[in-house]
């Protein structure tokens, strides 16, 4: 009946959906982010955190998870054109940056993301 999966972090059970997105956005902590990143095969560095923080700022500002284009635009706006490039994000969060980074940032899956 119950097909929900959980992340096990420091004795806590954190429910995630079948694609690995958090069920409850309030469950997010930096430790949860690291665990989510690990399940994507990503080791978080400062460069990752900078993008994750911007994604969360985007979500607070607009109440939605950005698809690739708006994410690139938002990052250009805040971190400059060197980082506001899809290839840069692709290197940090392969293979689908908007989706993978949203997941690690604890946001809902981008609705307009294929």
């Amino acid at each position, binding site marked *: 009946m119950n097909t929900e999966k959980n992340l096990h972090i420091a004795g806590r059970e954190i429910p995630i959906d079948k694609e690995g997105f958090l069920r409850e956005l309030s469950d997010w902590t930096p430790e949860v982010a690291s665990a989510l990143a690990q399940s994507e095969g990503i080791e978080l560095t400062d460069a990752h955190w900078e993008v994750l923080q911007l994604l969360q700022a985007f979500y607070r500002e607009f109440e*939605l998870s950005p698809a690739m284009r708006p994410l690139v635009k938002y990052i250009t706006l805040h971190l400059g054109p060197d980082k506001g490039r899809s290839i840069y994000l692709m290197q940090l969060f392969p293979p689908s940056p908007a989706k993978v980074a949203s997941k690690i940032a604890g946001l809902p899956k981008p609705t307009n993301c294929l």
Partner: protein
Amino acid sequence: MSKNTLALCRQAPYGNALAREGLEAILAAAAMDQAPAVLFLGDGVFQLAGQKPEAIAEKNLRRNIQALPMFDVETLHVCKSSLLQRGIMPEALQVPGADIELVEDCGSFIRKFDHVLSF
């Protein structure tokens, strides 16, 4: 071709699902580099007015609308007479990063498009 599409938004934000569906269609198209023009008309102009939908446990549509410039929809067209009819001052409409363009003659505006999506 799809460059020349208009999304016609005529519904108030929370009474039915159309306002949100329209916005989602616009965002989806824009994410694919096919951003339509947008015209708010009739009760649709209420989508641009201030909102506190936490009171009814809904997501804030206007916040989502503010994301449109990030999706390269940088001009929002608004029917001027719809605003005045409803006692809304055009100056009261502000979406950071977007230009609000008042349309006096919606008929001439609409016919410039090849496709019109109604919401």
